C-alpha cells in the first residue's frame, strides 16, 4: 500500500491553532482556563439533551476565572441553580448562565449578558442570531460552522428516532425556510410563492445537513446534484456501519417552480407527484430487500409542500387565505403503503409557509 506523504500545511495549521478555543484558553489562562472552558462546553453538550436553540436564541454562558466575590453576593438573590432537564427545557430564548468552578451552573434571572460584561478575567460564550463566539480574556473567537444549518455547534439535540428528527426539521427549519440552503431553493426567498428552477438538490442538501447534526448514523449518502446514475434513485441513504440499520429517504416537492428569469413556470406538481414518490420508494425498498436481505431498512417519504391557492404568473401578493389554503390539507395516498408495509413509514409532509 502506498500512501502519499503529505506535509502539514503550516498556514492551515496556524489558522486551526488560532481558531481553537481550548488552545486560546491555555494561552490566556493556563491550565485553569482549559479546565473552565471544558466545564462550560460540557454544560452546553448536556443541556443540548434537554433544550433546543433557534435563530432567535440569545444566550450567554460565562465561566469566571479566579475569585469574584461580588458575584457570590448577587448570586444569592439574582440567580437560580440549574437542575439538568428541569430548570431549562424546550426552546431556549434568552438566558445568561454562570458556570461555577465546581461545575454547577446558575441561571441569572432577567439577564441576557454576563454580569461580568466588562471584565476580562472570564471565559464567555455567546450565541446571537446563530453566531457563536468565545471571549477568552480580551480575545474573541468566532466559531466556525462545521455543521451548516445548525444554530449552534455545541447545543445540539440528538434524536433517537428519525421520524421525530424529520418532523423537527419541518417545524424548526423548513416551515419558515430559515435554513440558508433551503432559502436558495425559492425563486425569491422573501416572497415564497414558488421555487426557482430545479430545487431538488437544495432540498436534499438542507435536509441531509440537518440530519448529520442531530442523528447518529455512520454514513450519509446524498444523491449528487447531477443525477448521473439512475440505478440510485433514492435521495438520501443513512447507514449504521456496524449494525444492519438503514434508512432510505425519498424526497418530493409539490407546488410550482419558475424559471430563473421568472418568465415562465417550469413545473406544477400536485398530490400525484407525492403518490409517485411513494411508489418509487416502495419499489426501491423491494429492490433493496432483494439485494440486502439481512438489512433492517425503513423507508421515509418526505414531501416539501409549497402549494399556494390560485397563484398565477401575474401574482404579486397573496391573501392569508391563499397562503394557508394547503397548510393543513394532508395528501391522500393510494395505495397507502404505510398501512400495509412494515418497512414504509407514514409519509411526512412539510408545509413551507410564504
Amino acid at each position, binding site marked *: *500500500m*502506498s*500512501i*502519499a*506523504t*503529505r*506535509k*502539514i*500545511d*503550516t498556514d*492551515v*495549521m*496556524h*489558522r*486551526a*491553532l488560532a*481558531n*481553537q*478555543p*481550548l*488552545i486560546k484558553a*491555555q*494561552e490566556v489562562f493556563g*491550565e485553569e482556563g*482549559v479546565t473552565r472552558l*471544558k466545564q462550560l*462546553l*460540557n454544560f452546553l*453538550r*448536556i443541556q443540548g*439533551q434537554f433544550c433546543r436553540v433557534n435563530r432567535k436564541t440569545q444566550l450567554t454562558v460565562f465561566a469566571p476565572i479566579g475569585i469574584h466575590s461580588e458575584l457570590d453576593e448577587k448570586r444569592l438573590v439574582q440567580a437560580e441553580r440549574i437542575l439538568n432537564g428541569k430548570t431549562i427545557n424546550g426552546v431556549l430564548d434568552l438566558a445568561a448562565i454562570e458556570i461555577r468552578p465546581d461545575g454547577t451552573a446558575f441561571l441569572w434571572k432577567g439577564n441576557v449578558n454576563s454580569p461580568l460584561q466588562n471584565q476580562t478575567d472570564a471565559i464567555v460564550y455567546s450565541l446571537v442570531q446563530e453566531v457563536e463566539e468565545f471571549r477568552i480574556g480580551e480575545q474573541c473567537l468566532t466559531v*466556525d460552522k*462545521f*455543521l451548516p444549518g445548525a444554530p449552534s455547534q*455545541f447545543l*445540539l439535540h*440528538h434524536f*433517537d*428516532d428519525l421520524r421525530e428528527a424529520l418532523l423537527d426539521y419541518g417545524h424548526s427549519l423548513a416551515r419558515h425556510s430559515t435554513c440558508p440552503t433551503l432559502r436558495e431553493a425559492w425563486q425569491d426567498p422573501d416572497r415564497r410563492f414558488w421555487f426557482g428552477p430545479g430545487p431538488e438538490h437544495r432540498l436534499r442538501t438542507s435536509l441531509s445537513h440537518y440530519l*448529520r*447534526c442531530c442523528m*447518529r448514523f*455512520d*454514513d450519509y449518502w446524498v444523491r449528487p446534484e447531477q443525477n448521473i446514475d439512475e440505478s440510485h434513485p433514492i435521495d438520501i441513504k443513512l447507514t*449504521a*456501519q*456496524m*449494525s444492519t*440499520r438503514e434508512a432510505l429517504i425519498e424526497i418530493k416537492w409539490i407546488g410550482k417552480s419558475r424559471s430563473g428569469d421568472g418568465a415562465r413556470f417550469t413545473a406544477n406538481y400536485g398530490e400525484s407527484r407525492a403518490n409517485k414518490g411513494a411508489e418509487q420508494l416502495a419499489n426501491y425498498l423491494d429492490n433493496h430487500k432483494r439485494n440486502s436481505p439481512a438489512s433492517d431498512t425503513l423507508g421515509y417519504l418526505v414531501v416539501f409542500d409549497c402549494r399556494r391557492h390560485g397563484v398565477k404568473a401575474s401574482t404579486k401578493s397573496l391573501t392569508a387565505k391563499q397562503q394557508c389554503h394547503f397548510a393543513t390539507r394532508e395528501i391522500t395516498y393510494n395505495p397507502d403503503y404505510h398501512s400495509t408495509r412494515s418497512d414504509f413509514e407514514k409519509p411526512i409532509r412539510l408545509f413551507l409557509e410564504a
Partner: protein
Amino acid sequence: MTSPQAYFDSLLLGSRLTQTVRGFSRSELHLLAYASCLLSLYGGKPVSDWEYEFSSTPSGLPFSKNLDDALDYCIRIGDITDHGELLQITSDGQTNLGIWKEHTINQERLAYLNGAADCLLLFTPSVIREAFAYEPALAFIKRHAQTAWLFSDPIVDRLHDTFGEIRELLPYQGSDLSLPLSAWLEYLLTIGRTHEHSN
C-alpha cells in the same frame, strides 16, 4: 479471552460518551479508541504498547476485533446496555470502571482516552468521523475500498512525521492531549472540506 485493556477502554469511553452525548454506536466507540491510540503514539509510546490493534473497514472506519469482543462482553455482563438506537454504560459498568481505573496498568491510558473523549466537547461524533475520513491513510483505504492494518510501519512512520510537525507548531507542550487532537481534527476538516469543494 477478553483483552483487559480493551475492556477498560470500552468502559471509560462508554462512560464519557454516555455522559456527553447520551450514548454511542459501536463505530463511535471504535473511532474514539483509535483516536486514543493515536494520542499514545503522539505521546511517544510505541504502538505495541496499546495492546490491541486496529484495521480499517472498506468504508474507512477504524475497527478493532479486541474492542468489539470487549464490547460484547460488557453487554453480556450488563456493564453496557442497549438504549434505543444507542448503547449506554450502566451503573454496574460505572462501578467496574471505578475499580479498573485504580489499576496501575490503566493509569497511563487515562490521559489518552480522556484526551480523545474531551474532543466530544468541541466536535460531534459525526464531525470527528468526518475529520478522520480526511486523514491520508484512512482516506486512501476508503478510496480503494480495502481492509488494511492501520498501524503498519509506513503508516506509523508517516504519523510520526505528522505529529512531529504538529508538536513544533503547537504553542503548548503540556499533558492535556485534547489540545493537539482538537487542533489536528480542525486542521483535517479544513483541509478535507476545502479539497472536496475544489473537486
